[in-house]
Protein backbone atom coordinates (compact mmCIF):
# COMPACT_ATOMS: atom_id res chain seq x y z
CA UNK A 1 0.00 0.00 0.00
CA UNK A 2 1.36 3.42 -0.99
CA UNK A 3 1.23 6.43 1.32
CA UNK A 4 -1.48 8.20 -0.67
CA UNK A 5 -3.82 5.21 -0.33
CA UNK A 6 -4.07 5.71 3.44
CA UNK A 7 -7.07 7.45 5.00
CA UNK A 8 -6.73 10.32 7.48
CA UNK A 9 -7.34 7.90 10.35
CA UNK A 10 -4.70 5.47 9.05
CA UNK A 11 -2.18 8.27 8.50
CA UNK A 12 -2.83 9.57 12.03
CA UNK A 13 -2.00 6.15 13.40
CA UNK A 14 1.24 5.84 11.42
CA UNK A 15 2.36 9.39 12.23
CA UNK A 16 1.67 8.83 15.93
CA UNK A 17 3.65 5.58 15.91
CA UNK A 18 6.49 7.35 14.00
CA UNK A 19 6.22 4.87 11.13
CA UNK A 20 5.86 7.82 8.81
CA UNK A 21 6.75 11.50 9.08
CA UNK A 22 4.60 14.38 7.90
CA UNK A 23 7.44 15.35 5.57
CA UNK A 24 7.34 11.91 3.90
CA UNK A 25 3.56 12.03 3.59
CA UNK A 26 3.63 15.53 2.11
CA UNK A 27 6.39 14.57 -0.30
CA UNK A 28 4.41 11.55 -1.50
CA UNK A 29 1.34 13.69 -2.09
CA UNK A 30 3.23 16.42 -3.92
CA UNK A 31 4.60 13.74 -6.25
CA UNK A 32 1.14 12.28 -6.71
CA UNK A 33 -0.25 15.73 -7.58
CA UNK A 34 2.54 16.40 -10.06
CA UNK A 35 1.89 13.04 -11.74
CA UNK A 36 -1.90 13.31 -12.00
CA UNK A 37 -2.80 16.99 -12.18
CA UNK A 38 -1.98 17.43 -15.89
CA UNK A 39 -4.83 14.99 -16.61
CA UNK A 40 -7.33 16.18 -14.02
CA UNK A 41 -6.65 19.94 -13.56
CA UNK A 42 -8.09 19.72 -10.05
CA UNK A 43 -5.58 22.17 -8.54
CA UNK A 44 -5.42 25.87 -9.44
CA UNK A 45 -2.44 26.41 -7.12
CA UNK A 46 -0.14 23.75 -5.65
CA UNK A 47 1.53 25.06 -2.48
CA UNK A 48 4.63 22.88 -2.51
CA UNK A 49 6.87 25.31 -0.61
CA UNK A 50 4.48 26.26 2.19
CA UNK A 51 3.28 22.64 2.47
CA UNK A 52 6.86 21.46 3.01
CA UNK A 53 7.40 24.06 5.73
CA UNK A 54 4.07 23.12 7.36
CA UNK A 55 5.02 19.43 7.28
CA UNK A 56 8.33 20.15 9.07
CA UNK A 57 6.46 22.15 11.72
CA UNK A 58 4.00 19.25 12.13
CA UNK A 59 6.87 16.79 12.59
CA UNK A 60 8.34 19.01 15.30
CA UNK A 61 4.96 19.17 17.03
CA UNK A 62 4.58 15.38 16.88
CA UNK A 63 8.11 14.94 18.27
CA UNK A 64 7.20 17.29 21.13
CA UNK A 65 4.05 15.30 21.85
CA UNK A 66 1.79 18.21 20.84
CA UNK A 67 -0.44 16.38 18.43
CA UNK A 68 -3.92 17.46 17.39
CA UNK A 69 -6.22 15.20 15.30
CA UNK A 70 -5.13 16.77 11.97
CA UNK A 71 -1.44 17.40 12.76
CA UNK A 72 0.65 16.54 9.71
CA UNK A 73 -2.32 15.36 7.62
CA UNK A 74 -2.40 16.43 3.95
CA UNK A 75 -5.48 18.53 3.11
CA UNK A 76 -6.38 20.56 0.03
CA UNK A 77 -8.96 23.35 -0.02
CA UNK A 78 -11.32 24.81 -2.58
CA UNK A 79 -9.96 28.07 -3.99
CA UNK A 80 -12.85 29.96 -2.38
CA UNK A 81 -11.16 30.05 1.06
CA UNK A 82 -8.93 32.97 1.88
CA UNK A 83 -5.48 31.64 2.76
CA UNK A 84 -3.00 34.21 4.07
CA UNK A 85 -0.16 34.86 1.65
CA UNK A 86 -1.54 32.53 -1.03
CA UNK A 87 -3.47 33.31 -4.18
CA UNK A 88 -7.27 32.97 -3.86
CA UNK A 89 -8.94 33.12 -7.28
CA UNK A 90 -12.43 31.71 -6.64
CA UNK A 91 -12.09 30.28 -10.16
CA UNK A 92 -12.37 33.77 -11.65
CA UNK A 93 -10.25 36.00 -13.87
CA UNK A 94 -11.34 38.95 -11.76
CA UNK A 95 -9.41 37.52 -8.77
CA UNK A 96 -6.66 35.96 -10.88
CA UNK A 97 -3.88 37.78 -9.01
CA UNK A 98 -5.54 38.21 -5.63
CA UNK A 99 -3.31 37.35 -2.64
CA UNK A 100 -5.30 36.84 0.57
CA UNK A 101 -4.22 39.08 3.43
CA UNK A 102 -5.82 36.76 6.01
CA UNK A 103 -7.09 33.21 6.68
CA UNK A 104 -10.73 32.13 6.57
CA UNK A 105 -11.80 30.80 9.97
CA UNK A 106 -12.07 27.22 8.62
CA UNK A 107 -8.50 27.51 7.31
CA UNK A 108 -7.30 29.01 10.59
CA UNK A 109 -8.82 26.06 12.45
CA UNK A 110 -7.10 23.36 10.39
CA UNK A 111 -3.85 25.34 10.48
CA UNK A 112 -4.12 25.59 14.28
CA UNK A 113 -4.08 21.77 14.32
CA UNK A 114 -0.99 21.90 12.07
CA UNK A 115 -2.61 20.22 9.10
CA UNK A 116 -0.60 20.52 5.87
CA UNK A 117 -2.33 22.51 3.11
CA UNK A 118 -1.27 21.04 -0.24
CA UNK A 119 -3.00 23.55 -2.46
CA UNK A 120 -6.05 25.39 -3.71
CA UNK A 121 -8.61 23.46 -5.70
CA UNK A 122 -10.37 24.24 -8.95
CA UNK A 123 -14.04 25.19 -8.91
CA UNK A 124 -16.79 26.79 -10.94
CA UNK A 125 -16.29 30.56 -10.97
CA UNK A 126 -17.66 32.02 -7.72
CA UNK A 127 -19.10 28.55 -6.97
CA UNK A 128 -21.70 29.01 -9.72
CA UNK A 129 -22.04 25.77 -11.62
CA UNK A 130 -22.70 22.06 -11.49
CA UNK A 131 -19.91 20.76 -13.70
CA UNK A 132 -16.73 22.74 -12.94
CA UNK A 133 -16.78 23.85 -16.59
CA UNK A 134 -17.32 27.48 -15.50
CA UNK A 135 -13.77 27.86 -14.13
CA UNK A 136 -11.53 30.54 -15.64
CA UNK A 137 -8.71 28.03 -15.03
CA UNK A 138 -10.14 25.27 -17.24
CA UNK A 139 -12.47 22.34 -16.68
CA UNK A 140 -11.67 19.56 -14.21
CA UNK A 141 -11.98 15.97 -15.42
CA UNK A 142 -13.66 13.16 -13.55
CA UNK A 143 -10.98 10.67 -12.39
CA UNK A 144 -13.35 7.75 -13.07
CA UNK A 145 -13.87 8.71 -16.71
CA UNK A 146 -11.89 11.62 -18.11
CA UNK A 147 -14.58 12.53 -20.67
CA UNK A 148 -17.07 13.22 -17.85
CA UNK A 149 -17.47 16.20 -15.55
CA UNK A 150 -16.53 15.83 -11.86
CA UNK A 151 -19.63 17.84 -10.87
CA UNK A 152 -19.57 21.28 -9.33
CA UNK A 153 -19.01 23.68 -7.98
CA UNK A 154 -16.49 21.86 -5.69
CA UNK A 155 -15.41 19.72 -8.67
CA UNK A 156 -11.70 20.07 -7.97
CA UNK A 157 -12.26 19.07 -4.33
CA UNK A 158 -14.15 15.88 -5.24
CA UNK A 159 -11.79 14.90 -8.07
CA UNK A 160 -8.76 15.51 -5.85
CA UNK A 161 -10.03 13.27 -3.04
CA UNK A 162 -11.15 10.53 -5.45
CA UNK A 163 -7.78 10.58 -7.25
CA UNK A 164 -5.88 10.54 -3.91
CA UNK A 165 -4.18 13.88 -4.54
CA UNK A 166 -5.01 14.83 -0.94
CA UNK A 167 -6.30 12.77 1.97
CA UNK A 168 -9.32 15.07 2.37
CA UNK A 169 -10.57 18.45 1.18
CA UNK A 170 -12.71 21.38 2.19
CA UNK A 171 -15.44 22.63 -0.14
CA UNK A 172 -18.55 24.77 0.01
CA UNK A 173 -22.17 23.95 -0.79
CA UNK A 174 -24.78 26.54 -1.79
CA UNK A 175 -27.16 24.31 -3.79
CA UNK A 176 -25.35 20.96 -3.81
CA UNK A 177 -21.78 22.00 -4.55
CA UNK A 178 -20.24 19.47 -2.13
CA UNK A 179 -22.75 16.63 -2.45
CA UNK A 180 -23.24 16.48 -6.22
CA UNK A 181 -19.49 16.33 -7.06
CA UNK A 182 -18.96 13.88 -4.17
CA UNK A 183 -21.58 11.62 -5.80
CA UNK A 184 -20.08 11.99 -9.29
CA UNK A 185 -16.59 11.11 -7.98
CA UNK A 186 -17.51 8.45 -5.36
CA UNK A 187 -16.30 10.24 -2.22
CA UNK A 188 -18.05 11.18 1.02
CA UNK A 189 -19.18 14.82 1.20
CA UNK A 190 -21.09 16.63 3.92
CA UNK A 191 -22.97 19.92 3.89
CA UNK A 192 -23.45 20.96 7.51
CA UNK A 193 -26.48 22.83 8.81
CA UNK A 194 -26.38 26.54 7.96
CA UNK A 195 -24.56 28.18 10.86
CA UNK A 196 -22.60 25.08 11.94
CA UNK A 197 -19.35 26.22 10.27
CA UNK A 198 -18.11 29.80 10.03
CA UNK A 199 -18.30 31.44 6.61
CA UNK A 200 -15.78 34.13 7.61
CA UNK A 201 -13.17 34.47 4.87
CA UNK A 202 -15.11 32.34 2.39
CA UNK A 203 -15.76 34.30 -0.81
CA UNK A 204 -19.51 34.92 -0.74
CA UNK A 205 -21.92 33.66 -3.41
CA UNK A 206 -25.39 33.45 -1.77
CA UNK A 207 -24.96 34.33 1.87
CA UNK A 208 -28.17 32.76 3.22
CA UNK A 209 -27.32 29.42 1.56
CA UNK A 210 -23.49 29.07 1.51
CA UNK A 211 -21.99 26.56 3.93
CA UNK A 212 -18.49 25.06 4.37
CA UNK A 213 -18.03 21.30 4.56
CA UNK A 214 -15.62 18.39 4.11
CA UNK A 215 -15.02 15.87 1.31
CA UNK A 216 -13.24 12.68 2.37
CA UNK A 217 -12.66 9.05 1.44
CA UNK A 218 -14.82 7.58 4.16
CA UNK A 219 -17.27 8.56 6.85
CA UNK A 220 -14.78 8.52 9.73
CA UNK A 221 -12.47 10.93 7.91
CA UNK A 222 -15.46 13.11 7.08
CA UNK A 223 -16.39 13.24 10.78
CA UNK A 224 -12.79 14.13 11.70
CA UNK A 225 -12.78 17.03 9.23
CA UNK A 226 -16.18 18.33 10.33
CA UNK A 227 -15.03 18.24 13.95
CA UNK A 228 -12.06 20.43 13.07
CA UNK A 229 -14.06 23.21 11.41
CA UNK A 230 -17.42 23.13 13.26
CA UNK A 231 -18.33 25.65 15.92
CA UNK A 232 -19.24 29.22 16.69
CA UNK A 233 -17.09 32.04 15.38
CA UNK A 234 -17.53 35.60 16.62
CA UNK A 235 -16.37 36.79 13.18
CA UNK A 236 -19.45 35.22 11.53
CA UNK A 237 -22.60 36.50 13.22
CA UNK A 238 -24.65 33.81 11.42
CA UNK A 239 -22.62 30.97 12.93
CA UNK A 240 -24.55 29.32 15.72
CA UNK A 241 -23.37 28.99 19.29
CA UNK A 242 -24.28 25.31 19.71
CA UNK A 243 -21.60 22.90 20.85
CA UNK A 244 -20.65 20.28 18.24
CA UNK A 245 -20.85 16.74 19.67
CA UNK A 246 -18.00 14.21 19.36
CA UNK A 247 -18.81 12.98 15.85
CA UNK A 248 -16.41 10.02 15.84
CA UNK A 249 -17.82 8.71 19.11
CA UNK A 250 -21.23 8.48 17.43
CA UNK A 251 -19.97 6.09 14.76
CA UNK A 252 -21.10 2.80 16.30
CA UNK A 253 -22.49 0.97 13.27
CA UNK A 254 -25.68 0.34 15.22
CA UNK A 255 -28.76 1.99 13.72
CA UNK A 256 -31.47 -0.39 14.96
CA UNK A 257 -34.78 1.44 15.17
CA UNK A 258 -33.58 4.45 13.16
CA UNK A 259 -36.56 5.87 11.26
CA UNK A 260 -35.61 6.62 7.65
CA UNK A 261 -37.99 8.54 5.39
CA UNK A 262 -38.20 8.20 1.61
CA UNK A 263 -39.69 11.41 0.16
CA UNK A 264 -41.95 10.21 -2.66
CA UNK A 265 -41.40 13.42 -4.67
CA UNK A 266 -37.73 12.44 -5.12
CA UNK A 267 -38.47 9.19 -6.96
CA UNK A 268 -40.03 10.64 -10.08
CA UNK A 269 -39.70 10.69 -13.87
CA UNK A 270 -36.25 11.81 -14.94
CA UNK A 271 -34.53 9.70 -12.28
CA UNK A 272 -32.03 7.47 -14.10
CA UNK A 273 -32.78 3.72 -13.81
CA UNK A 274 -29.31 2.83 -12.50
CA UNK A 275 -29.51 5.55 -9.86
CA UNK A 276 -32.99 4.39 -8.83
CA UNK A 277 -31.80 0.79 -8.54
CA UNK A 278 -28.74 1.73 -6.45
CA UNK A 279 -30.82 3.84 -4.07
CA UNK A 280 -33.40 1.07 -3.74
CA UNK A 281 -30.63 -1.39 -2.91
CA UNK A 282 -29.28 1.02 -0.31
CA UNK A 283 -32.76 1.22 1.20
CA UNK A 284 -32.83 -2.58 1.41
CA UNK A 285 -29.43 -2.54 3.13
CA UNK A 286 -30.78 -0.13 5.72
CA UNK A 287 -33.81 -2.34 6.29
CA UNK A 288 -31.46 -5.30 6.85
CA UNK A 289 -29.50 -3.20 9.35
CA UNK A 290 -32.64 -2.74 11.41
CA UNK A 291 -33.85 0.67 10.25
CA UNK A 292 -37.53 1.36 9.86
CA UNK A 293 -38.34 2.65 6.34
CA UNK A 294 -41.25 5.10 6.05
CA UNK A 295 -42.60 6.90 2.99
CA UNK A 296 -42.93 10.66 3.55
CA UNK A 297 -43.89 13.66 1.47
CA UNK A 298 -42.05 16.93 0.77
CA UNK A 299 -44.88 18.47 -1.27
CA UNK A 300 -43.11 21.62 -2.48
CA UNK A 301 -40.04 19.84 -3.92
CA UNK A 302 -40.92 20.69 -7.52
CA UNK A 303 -40.65 24.43 -6.76
CA UNK A 304 -37.19 24.31 -5.20
CA UNK A 305 -35.08 24.93 -8.31
CA UNK A 306 -37.15 27.96 -9.34
CA UNK A 307 -37.05 29.28 -5.77
CA UNK A 308 -33.29 28.76 -5.54
CA UNK A 309 -32.45 30.50 -8.82
CA UNK A 310 -34.23 33.65 -7.68
CA UNK A 311 -32.84 33.76 -4.13
CA UNK A 312 -29.29 32.66 -4.97
CA UNK A 313 -28.97 35.01 -7.94
CA UNK A 314 -30.42 37.95 -6.01
CA UNK A 315 -27.91 37.43 -3.21
CA UNK A 316 -25.12 36.91 -5.74
CA UNK A 317 -25.89 40.14 -7.59
CA UNK A 318 -25.55 41.99 -4.29
CA UNK A 319 -22.44 40.12 -3.08
CA UNK A 320 -20.59 40.46 -6.38
CA UNK A 321 -21.14 44.23 -6.51
CA UNK A 322 -17.88 44.47 -4.53
CA UNK A 323 -15.82 43.55 -7.62
CA UNK A 324 -15.41 47.03 -9.01
CA UNK A 325 -11.70 47.19 -9.84
CA UNK A 326 -11.00 49.69 -7.04
CA UNK A 327 -9.71 47.89 -3.94
CA UNK A 328 -8.62 44.56 -5.42
CA UNK A 329 -9.10 42.44 -8.49
CA UNK A 330 -8.89 43.11 -12.19
CA UNK A 331 -9.19 46.71 -13.45
CA UNK A 332 -9.88 47.61 -17.08
CA UNK A 333 -7.40 50.34 -18.00
CA UNK A 334 -9.06 51.71 -21.14
CA UNK A 335 -12.13 53.15 -19.42
CA UNK A 336 -13.20 56.78 -20.00
CA UNK A 337 -14.63 57.45 -16.56
CA UNK A 338 -15.27 55.76 -13.22
CA UNK A 339 -18.60 54.10 -14.10
CA UNK A 340 -17.17 52.91 -17.38
CA UNK A 341 -14.20 51.48 -15.44
CA UNK A 342 -16.59 49.46 -13.24
CA UNK A 343 -18.52 48.20 -16.26
CA UNK A 344 -15.44 47.30 -18.32
CA UNK A 345 -13.64 45.65 -15.39
CA UNK A 346 -16.62 43.48 -14.52
CA UNK A 347 -17.25 42.60 -18.17
CA UNK A 348 -13.62 41.52 -18.61
CA UNK A 349 -13.34 39.76 -15.24
CA UNK A 350 -16.51 37.68 -15.02
CA UNK A 351 -17.38 34.60 -17.10
CA UNK A 352 -20.67 33.86 -18.86
CA UNK A 353 -22.49 32.06 -16.05
CA UNK A 354 -21.53 34.65 -13.45
CA UNK A 355 -22.80 37.44 -15.70
CA UNK A 356 -26.02 35.50 -16.30
CA UNK A 357 -26.66 35.10 -12.57
CA UNK A 358 -25.80 38.71 -11.73
CA UNK A 359 -28.23 39.81 -14.45
CA UNK A 360 -31.01 37.51 -13.28
CA UNK A 361 -30.53 38.51 -9.65
CA UNK A 362 -30.40 42.21 -10.43
CA UNK A 363 -33.61 41.85 -12.42
CA UNK A 364 -35.34 39.93 -9.59
CA UNK A 365 -34.40 42.69 -7.13
CA UNK A 366 -35.13 45.62 -9.44
CA UNK A 367 -37.88 48.13 -8.96
CA UNK A 368 -41.25 46.72 -9.95
CA UNK A 369 -40.16 43.06 -9.89
CA UNK A 370 -39.04 42.63 -6.27
CA UNK A 371 -42.41 41.40 -4.95
CA UNK A 372 -43.17 39.23 -7.96
CA UNK A 373 -39.86 37.39 -7.93
CA UNK A 374 -37.66 37.82 -4.86
CA UNK A 375 -40.34 38.15 -2.19
CA UNK A 376 -42.40 35.37 -3.79
CA UNK A 377 -39.35 33.08 -3.74
CA UNK A 378 -38.71 33.85 -0.06
CA UNK A 379 -42.28 32.85 0.76
CA UNK A 380 -41.93 29.61 -1.19
CA UNK A 381 -38.71 29.03 0.74
CA UNK A 382 -40.77 29.07 3.94
CA UNK A 383 -43.02 26.33 2.51
CA UNK A 384 -40.02 24.21 1.46
CA UNK A 385 -38.42 24.55 4.88
CA UNK A 386 -41.70 23.64 6.57
CA UNK A 387 -41.90 20.47 4.42
CA UNK A 388 -38.66 19.27 6.00
CA UNK A 389 -39.65 20.20 9.54
CA UNK A 390 -42.94 18.31 9.08
CA UNK A 391 -41.16 15.23 7.71
CA UNK A 392 -38.72 15.27 10.64
CA UNK A 393 -41.69 14.95 13.01
CA UNK A 394 -42.08 11.42 11.63
CA UNK A 395 -38.51 10.30 10.81
CA UNK A 396 -34.91 10.82 11.96
CA UNK A 397 -33.21 10.89 8.56
CA UNK A 398 -34.31 11.20 4.92
CA UNK A 399 -32.81 8.99 2.20
CA UNK A 400 -32.73 10.17 -1.43
CA UNK A 401 -30.59 10.14 -4.55
CA UNK A 402 -27.99 12.94 -4.71
CA UNK A 403 -28.44 13.65 -8.42
CA UNK A 404 -30.90 12.33 -11.02
CA UNK A 405 -28.12 10.85 -13.20
CA UNK A 406 -24.44 9.87 -12.87
CA UNK A 407 -21.77 12.31 -14.14
CA UNK A 408 -22.64 13.74 -17.54
CA UNK A 409 -20.19 14.36 -20.40
CA UNK A 410 -18.02 17.47 -20.63
CA UNK A 411 -19.82 19.95 -22.88
CA UNK A 412 -23.17 18.17 -22.64
CA UNK A 413 -25.03 20.90 -20.75
CA UNK A 414 -22.90 24.03 -21.12
CA UNK A 415 -25.28 25.63 -23.61
CA UNK A 416 -28.45 24.89 -21.67
CA UNK A 417 -28.36 26.65 -18.29
CA UNK A 418 -31.77 25.36 -17.21
CA UNK A 419 -30.80 21.70 -17.80
CA UNK A 420 -27.60 22.33 -15.85
CA UNK A 421 -29.60 23.82 -12.95
CA UNK A 422 -31.91 20.78 -12.87
CA UNK A 423 -28.98 18.45 -12.08
CA UNK A 424 -29.19 19.94 -8.56
CA UNK A 425 -32.89 19.20 -8.08
CA UNK A 426 -32.33 16.83 -5.10
CA UNK A 427 -29.70 18.90 -3.33
CA UNK A 428 -31.09 22.46 -3.61
CA UNK A 429 -34.06 21.96 -1.22
CA UNK A 430 -31.67 21.17 1.65
CA UNK A 431 -29.90 24.54 1.32
CA UNK A 432 -33.22 26.38 1.17
CA UNK A 433 -34.30 24.55 4.35
CA UNK A 434 -30.89 25.26 5.91
CA UNK A 435 -30.46 21.75 7.26
CA UNK A 436 -27.62 19.21 6.89
CA UNK A 437 -27.07 16.42 4.35
CA UNK A 438 -24.34 14.19 3.03
CA UNK A 439 -23.46 12.17 -0.04
CA UNK A 440 -21.88 8.74 0.17
CA UNK A 441 -20.97 6.14 -2.46
CA UNK A 442 -23.75 3.58 -3.03
CA UNK A 443 -22.97 1.93 -6.36
CA UNK A 444 -22.04 2.26 -10.00
CA UNK A 445 -24.01 2.60 -13.22
CA UNK A 446 -23.93 0.04 -16.04
CA UNK A 447 -21.13 2.08 -17.64
CA UNK A 448 -19.12 2.13 -14.38
CA UNK A 449 -19.89 5.68 -13.22
CA UNK A 450 -20.28 6.35 -9.47
CA UNK A 451 -23.68 6.84 -7.85
CA UNK A 452 -24.26 8.73 -4.61
CA UNK A 453 -26.75 8.30 -1.81
CA UNK A 454 -28.02 11.38 0.03
CA UNK A 455 -28.85 11.32 3.74
CA UNK A 456 -30.60 14.44 5.02
CA UNK A 457 -30.68 15.19 8.76
CA UNK A 458 -32.54 17.46 11.14
CA UNK A 459 -31.04 20.92 11.68
CA UNK A 460 -27.78 20.56 13.68
CA UNK A 461 -28.06 16.75 13.75
CA UNK A 462 -25.01 16.00 11.59
CA UNK A 463 -24.27 13.22 14.11
CA UNK A 464 -27.36 11.26 12.97
CA UNK A 465 -26.47 11.28 9.27
CA UNK A 466 -22.83 10.46 10.00
CA UNK A 467 -23.91 7.52 12.16
CA UNK A 468 -26.34 6.27 9.48
CA UNK A 469 -23.69 6.73 6.79
CA UNK A 470 -21.11 4.84 8.84
CA UNK A 471 -23.44 1.87 9.34
CA UNK A 472 -24.03 1.71 5.56
CA UNK A 473 -20.33 1.97 4.86
CA UNK A 474 -19.58 -0.90 7.26
CA UNK A 475 -22.12 -3.05 5.39
CA UNK A 476 -20.91 -2.22 1.86
CA UNK A 477 -17.69 -1.99 -0.13
CA UNK A 478 -18.46 0.90 -2.48
CA UNK A 479 -16.18 3.37 -0.71
CA UNK A 480 -13.20 1.05 -1.19
CA UNK A 481 -13.29 1.23 -5.00
CA UNK A 482 -10.79 3.59 -6.54
CA UNK A 483 -10.50 5.08 -10.02
CA UNK A 484 -7.63 3.82 -12.20
CA UNK A 485 -5.53 6.94 -12.28
Amino acid at each position, binding site marked *: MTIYDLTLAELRDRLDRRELSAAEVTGAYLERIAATNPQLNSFITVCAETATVEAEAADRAIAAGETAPLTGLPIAVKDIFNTAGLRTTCGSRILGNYISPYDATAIGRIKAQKAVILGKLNMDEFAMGSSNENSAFGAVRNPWELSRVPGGSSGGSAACVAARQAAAALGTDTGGSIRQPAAYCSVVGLKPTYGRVSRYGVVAYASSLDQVGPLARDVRDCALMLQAVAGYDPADSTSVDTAAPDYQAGLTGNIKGLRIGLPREYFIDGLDDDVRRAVEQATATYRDLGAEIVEVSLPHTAYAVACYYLIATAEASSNLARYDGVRYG*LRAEQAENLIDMYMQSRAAGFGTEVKRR*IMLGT*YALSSGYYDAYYLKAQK*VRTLIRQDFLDAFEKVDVLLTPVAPTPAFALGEKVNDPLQMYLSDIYTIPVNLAGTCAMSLPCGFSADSLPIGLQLIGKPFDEAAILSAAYAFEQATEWHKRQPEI
Partner: protein
Amino acid sequence: MKITRAEVEHVSRLSRLALSEAELDSLTGEMDAILDYVEQLNSLDTEGIVPTAHAVPMENAFRADEVKPGFTPEQALGNAPDTAESAFRVRRVIE
Protein backbone atom coordinates in the same frame (compact mmCIF):
# COMPACT_ATOMS: atom_id res chain seq x y z
CA MET B 1 -41.94 37.27 -23.85
CA LYS B 2 -41.14 37.73 -20.15
CA ILE B 3 -38.31 40.15 -20.82
CA THR B 4 -37.34 42.33 -23.78
CA ARG B 5 -33.89 43.11 -25.12
CA ALA B 6 -34.32 46.72 -24.00
CA GLU B 7 -35.01 45.53 -20.43
CA VAL B 8 -31.94 43.27 -20.54
CA GLU B 9 -29.88 46.27 -21.62
CA HIS B 10 -31.31 48.31 -18.73
CA VAL B 11 -30.49 45.52 -16.25
CA SER B 12 -26.93 45.34 -17.62
CA ARG B 13 -26.47 49.01 -16.68
CA LEU B 14 -27.92 48.40 -13.21
CA SER B 15 -25.51 45.45 -12.90
CA ARG B 16 -22.56 47.57 -14.05
CA LEU B 17 -21.74 45.06 -16.78
CA ALA B 18 -20.60 46.28 -20.20
CA LEU B 19 -22.13 43.54 -22.34
CA SER B 20 -21.52 43.04 -26.05
CA GLU B 21 -24.38 43.02 -28.57
CA ALA B 22 -23.98 39.24 -28.86
CA GLU B 23 -24.17 38.82 -25.07
CA LEU B 24 -27.30 40.97 -24.88
CA ASP B 25 -28.89 38.85 -27.62
CA SER B 26 -28.15 35.50 -25.98
CA LEU B 27 -29.02 36.73 -22.47
CA THR B 28 -32.42 37.93 -23.67
CA GLY B 29 -33.33 34.42 -24.77
CA GLU B 30 -31.76 32.71 -21.73
CA MET B 31 -33.31 35.04 -19.17
CA ASP B 32 -36.66 34.72 -20.89
CA ALA B 33 -36.49 30.91 -20.62
CA ILE B 34 -35.45 31.06 -16.95
CA LEU B 35 -38.16 33.59 -16.07
CA ASP B 36 -40.67 31.38 -17.86
CA TYR B 37 -39.49 28.44 -15.72
CA VAL B 38 -39.71 30.35 -12.40
CA GLU B 39 -43.24 31.43 -13.35
CA GLN B 40 -44.41 28.14 -11.78
CA LEU B 41 -44.00 29.72 -8.34
CA ASN B 42 -47.11 31.76 -9.10
CA SER B 43 -49.22 28.60 -9.06
CA LEU B 44 -48.61 28.47 -5.27
CA ASP B 45 -50.85 30.43 -2.95
CA THR B 46 -48.50 32.24 -0.56
CA GLU B 47 -51.07 34.55 0.99
CA GLY B 48 -50.14 35.09 4.64
CA ILE B 49 -46.86 33.12 4.38
CA VAL B 50 -43.97 34.83 6.17
CA PRO B 51 -40.94 35.15 3.85
CA THR B 52 -37.74 33.34 4.90
CA ALA B 53 -34.64 35.51 4.58
CA HIS B 54 -32.58 33.23 6.79
CA ALA B 55 -32.94 29.51 7.43
CA VAL B 56 -31.90 29.51 11.09
CA PRO B 57 -34.14 31.56 13.36
CA MET B 58 -31.95 34.15 15.05
CA GLU B 59 -32.15 37.57 16.62
CA ASN B 60 -29.76 40.42 16.00
CA ALA B 61 -26.21 39.46 16.90
CA PHE B 62 -24.56 42.11 19.03
CA ARG B 63 -20.94 42.29 20.07
CA ALA B 64 -19.00 44.41 22.51
CA ASP B 65 -17.66 47.65 21.04
CA GLU B 66 -13.97 46.90 21.47
CA VAL B 67 -10.90 48.05 19.62
CA LYS B 68 -9.17 45.08 17.96
CA PRO B 69 -6.25 44.84 15.56
CA GLY B 70 -7.21 45.16 11.89
CA PHE B 71 -5.33 45.36 8.59
CA THR B 72 -2.33 47.62 8.27
CA PRO B 73 -2.58 50.17 5.43
CA GLU B 74 -0.07 48.03 3.50
CA GLN B 75 -2.28 44.94 3.84
CA ALA B 76 -5.41 46.84 2.89
CA LEU B 77 -3.75 48.28 -0.20
CA GLY B 78 -1.80 45.16 -1.10
CA ASN B 79 -4.15 44.00 -3.86
CA ALA B 80 -5.20 47.41 -5.17
CA PRO B 81 -4.76 48.03 -8.91
CA ASP B 82 -3.69 51.63 -8.23
CA THR B 83 -2.81 53.49 -5.04
CA ALA B 84 -1.60 56.91 -3.93
CA GLU B 85 -0.10 57.30 -0.45
CA SER B 86 -2.52 55.38 1.79
CA ALA B 87 -5.51 55.54 -0.57
CA PHE B 88 -7.04 53.66 -3.51
CA ARG B 89 -6.66 55.75 -6.64
CA VAL B 90 -9.40 55.95 -9.28
CA ARG B 91 -10.23 58.31 -12.14
CA ARG B 92 -11.54 61.73 -11.27
CA VAL B 93 -15.19 61.40 -10.17
CA ILE B 94 -16.20 65.07 -10.35
CA GLU B 95 -14.91 67.19 -13.23
